[in-house]
């Protein structure tokens, strides 16, 4: 698909189809059938695992947790930490990535350090952060920021570095100031790569928030998961698990919508960038 065509497709609203035609009915039906099969297996005793609750038991657990208010509090905590941490990480990654991408000297003298540090598995920083910050939300936040900053930084760097020389010449011909150059040329040209970084960063932010809660911070969905696991309450545990998945989907969808609204046309290019 050529780029112009991709942009064209992205800008054309899919209004020609009715809403019910755009909905993935096959998928919805399959999911429903799978859930019903799961419920039947459990009720007829065909397959019975001690610790796998049936869908109806999970619904019961959800009602319980909602009435206690534990689920709302946990979702709010995890979502807040993940989003705030991700936002701070994005800011750091954007600034450092742009600087490293624009200056060949800075890149030469720092890129290898970045390569080494970013390939350290961020999960290993959780015990260290527990040691330094204790079992607290600041520990969780620090870990989330650290983990989510790398993909934003690396993708911004790549995006800025690979801007076509023609665009650089345009900036030079018009004697653009550094600031104007970054705002009007560099960032828009690198946007599709940056968006990939933002998405990866958001996913990592959630993974690390969960991990930090499971290991150390006594709050949020991750803590709920471990508590119910140790209390041998599988139904309530699966409620937390499903909430984690739904939270992931919602946060990703919001990011996609924001990108869609602010940068129409980039979305299609970002899709291509993610694949290649």
């Amino acid at each position, binding site marked *: *698909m050529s780029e112009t065509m991709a942009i064209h497709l992205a800008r054309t609203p899919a209004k020609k189809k009715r809403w019910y035609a755009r909905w*993935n009915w*096959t*998928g*919805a*039906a*399959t*999911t429903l059938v*799978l859930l019903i099969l799961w419920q039947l297996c459990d009720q007829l005793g065909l397959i019975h695992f001690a*610790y*796998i609750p049936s869908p109806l038991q999970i619904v019961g657990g959800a009602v319980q947790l909602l009435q206690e208010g534990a689920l709302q509090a946990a979702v709010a905590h995890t979502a807040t930490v993940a989003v705030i941490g991700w936002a701070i990480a994005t800011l750091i990654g954007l600034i450092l990535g742009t600087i490293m991408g624009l200056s060949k000297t800075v*890149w*030469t*003298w*720092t*890129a*290898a*350090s*970045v*390569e*080494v*540090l970013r*390939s*350290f*598995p*961020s*999960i*290993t920083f*959780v*015990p*260290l952060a*527990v*040691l*330094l910050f204790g079992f607290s939300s600041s520990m969780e936040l620090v870990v989330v920021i650290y983990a989510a900053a790398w993909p934003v930084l690396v993708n911004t760097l790549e995006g800025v570095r690979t801007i076509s020389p023609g665009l650089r010449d345009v900036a030079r011909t018009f004697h653009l100031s550094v600031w104007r150059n970054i705002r009007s040329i560099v960032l828009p040209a690198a946007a599709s790569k940056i968006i990939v970084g933002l998405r990866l960063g958001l*996913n990592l932010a*959630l*993974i690390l*928030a*969960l*991990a930090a809660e*499971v*290991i150390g911070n006594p709050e949020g*969905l991750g803590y709920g*998961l*471990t508590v*119910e*696991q140790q209390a*041998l309450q*599988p139904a309530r*545990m699966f409620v*937390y*698990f499903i909430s*984690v*998945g739904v939270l*992931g*989907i919602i946060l*990703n969808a919001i990011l996609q919508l924001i990108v869609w609204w602010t940068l129409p046309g980039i979305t299609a290019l970002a899709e*291509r960038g993610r*694949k*290649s």
Partner: protein
Amino acid sequence: MSQPTAVTGSTGVSRRGRRAARRGNVVPLRGLAPLVVGLALWQIFGTDDSAFFPRPSTWVVQIVDLAKGGTLWPALGATLESLLISLVVATIVGGILGIIVGASRFVDRALNPTLEFFRATPSSAMVPIGVLLLGYTLTMKVSITVIAAIWPILLSTRAAMREFNPTLLDVASVFKMSWPRRIRTIILPAVSTAVLLGIRVGAPVAIIVTILIEILTGITGMGALLAQSQQEYNSAATFGLLVMIGIVALLFNFLVGWIESFFTRHLPPA
């Protein structure tokens, strides 16, 4: 990846041009300077008995202690063993599922919501469930890691199958190829780059999940050592293990990247 030339492998780029392009992407070693200078300053101005930031030489002492105590190498072996098994299983299962799901428009649409849910679910949430269902075993460690690392491989293979040019299968029909032959000569080459890309994305995820499981459950491994040193407030050992796991991960990802470039060396640079 969408261009058909990527499958046939015939390109207009000369070998020298490709090599030059690769050299342009090589990161100069000079860039390690900030890291080295930072560690050196830490070593010079830090103290041995700092509760939180002991200087680097104490890390080495602690790691050597662990190695002498006979816990370091078995732990490293255990972590690498379960990582390798998980990645191999994830590659085979993810590749096959990806081909099946991507080959049929109907199966693709039918399973899409389920796949999207599991893809969006942070892998770390899977760990408590695995512990409850399977207990503190190697099977649990490998299964959870496989479940976490399989998504990038599955989804990237599925995407490659979606873009798969049906004409290629018509060619197979014309030549009256047997199914094993079709899979070997047409389908596998068409998805191999996608599978390799999936492995490269999945490998870091597998490392994260393996270490997390070890931290949580205390099953023999680098993560368990890390958790132990944290619980003993041994910050020097924590730093040392962190660096060691980092170096192992670096080598591991490098190896995966090398395998990928080895298998895709006949393709044009992306």
